[in-house]
């Protein structure tokens, strides 16, 4: 049965990775390794009926290999990780999904995109362009909602990996009000982006600039900005996940995550707590990497809006009370079917998006040896 259920994903992988195929030998090996890796993980998800731990292998691999492939490309094309102002003026800044919510207000009010990139496919690092990226983001988001943050974000894997390194949390008492942090960053950066006509999050607060590319530090301004990136990365992506075993950047800071939470309302997939089975032992609350379960929400049989459908609570529940669910159906009626449908959608997109990233990172490493 597990083989049969994996078959559609294997076919999809074949189609996707055939599209990535390159004449370069190291790239070919990387593509084959990635295809096998993705299919094997899906097979294990089907066989063990567990989601979180297998998804985590993929997610951490994507998080760690993205900087490898990306930095290599940036240095090969530009010679430096720092974006010179000339590249920004020429609209050749690579676009990632994180500033999407910050572009909405300026675009709606002034018909201007406040990002120094290219809307259509451009030269250099502009890549496929913002329109393609935004279109892909919208299509995926409507289906999986905040599931994006568990299957498609190419940054979240670094902190998830850090959180997995330690056996137990050293810092257990966390003020729940920090959960509002992403909404505050979203509000502040959206308003400042409109006022300054600038993508404020990218210029000032993105921790992942430390492992992708940064504003070339040619003056005090650049120095301060890069200092902030490094401090935020060291604190939120490395130190705090090690101390708390949580995805602290995602849970307490990321404005894109807050924005994605809104789309949990449009996605048909969610996680429910079957109150007839729940004891409650609150193991799910402890396991949740983004603190999306509280005593009150468990009592109501719900997860909070910030749930990113990673499956940690479902896998850890000893009574099968935390269940995958499709909106409009009865809770716990057919949770395995709901899980399967979500995984087909999310894994299919993960192969398309993350598969390429993993293959590129692997190819970069293999290229050193082959």
């Amino acid at each position, binding site marked *: 049965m597990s083989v049969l259920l994996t078959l559609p994903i294997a076919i999809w992988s074949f189609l996707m990775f055939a599209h990535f195929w390159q004449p370069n030998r190291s790239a070919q090996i990387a593509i084959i390794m990635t295809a096998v890796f993705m299919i094997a993980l899906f097979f294990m998800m089907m066989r063990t009926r567990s989601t979180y731990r297998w998804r985590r292998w993929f997610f951490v691999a994507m998080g760690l290999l993205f900087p490898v492939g990306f930095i290599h490309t940036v240095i090969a094309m530009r010679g430096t990780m720092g974006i010179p102002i000339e590249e920004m003026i020429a609209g050749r800044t690579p676009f990632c999904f994180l500033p999407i919510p910050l572009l909405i207000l300026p675009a709606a009010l002034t018909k201007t995109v406040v990002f120094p990139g290219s809307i259509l496919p451009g030269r250099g690092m502009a890549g496929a362009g913002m329109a393609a990226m935004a279109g892909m983001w919208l299509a995926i988001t409507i289906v999986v909602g905040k599931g994006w943050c568990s299957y498609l974000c190419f940054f979240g894997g670094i902190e998830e990996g850090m959180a997995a390194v330690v056996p137990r949390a050293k810092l257990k008492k966390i003020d729940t009000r920090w959960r509002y942090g992403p909404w*505050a960053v979203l509000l*502040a950066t959206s308003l400042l982006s409109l006022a300054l006509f600038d993508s404020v999050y990218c210029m000032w607060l993105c921790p992942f600039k430390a492992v992708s590319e940064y504003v070339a530090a040619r003056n005090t301004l650049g120095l301060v900005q890069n200092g902030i990136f490094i401090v935020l990365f060291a604190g939120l992506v490395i130190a705090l996940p090690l101390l708390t075993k949580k995805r602290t950047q995602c849970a307490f800071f990321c404005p894109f995550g807050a924005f994605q939470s809104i789309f949990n309302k449009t996605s048909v997939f969610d996680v429910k707590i079957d109150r007839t089975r729940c004891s409650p032992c609150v193991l799910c609350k402890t396991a949740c990497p983004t603190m999306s379960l509280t005593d009150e929400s468990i009592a109501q049989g719900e997860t909070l809006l910030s749930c990113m459908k990673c499956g940690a609570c479902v896998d850890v529940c000893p009574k099968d009370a935390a269940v995958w669910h499709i909106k409009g159906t009865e809770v716990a009626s057919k949770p395995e079917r709901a899980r399967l449908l979500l995984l087909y959608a999310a894994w299919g997109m993960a192969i398309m998006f993350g598969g390429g990233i993993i293959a590129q990172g692997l190819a970069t490493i293999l290229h050193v040896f082959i």
Partner: protein
Amino acid sequence: MAGYSIFGEALVLGLASGPACMASCGPVVVPSLLAERAGTRLNARYLSHFLGARFVGYLLFAAVAWGLGALVSLPPGPRLLVVGVVHVLLACVLFWYAYAVGHACAQTCASSKLVTIGGPRKRGVPGAAVLGFLTGFSLCPPFVAAGVRAAELGSIALALLFFAVFFVGTSVWFVPFVSLGWVRRNEAVTTVARMAMTLIALYYFYLGAMMLMGRKVYGY
């Protein structure tokens, strides 16, 4: 007749520049308004304090600049100094506001008064008025646009009147902010507003400090 057309021009200029004013003041108005208690009446009171004080700040700055003969082209040195000091003060007030909201809510959350800055509640100045007064000095692009036209008028009285009508035009754009009164206030909304205010304050503080150190930031 010519006078009417001048003031009609001021009104149209204000209406046209309104979105830029709204965007420029948004980082100050939106979080502080969300930090206040719910209700359109209370939010309208906040806006009236904010806009009234902003109007006073506008006219004061225009009058002083006219007196110095520098309404349009303030020399770079004093300009950096004025804008730098205003940004640092704005940051301090926003920090205080974020603190005062938590403090006020812990004591008299049911009260229908606005958050005050300094002293006991009865003697304190509404935070909205302090923020409004400081944003009146912000030298935003619409202000400069109005300054160019006002400087062409013959007397200071006419110039100030021009500014007043211009101000009415821009203020129309602030009316939709009253609708934030419908947003239900709970711990989540208040905390988000306070955190956002703190972040924005940090940014303004940095901006102000850099200007006072004589460094150019974002074209100022």
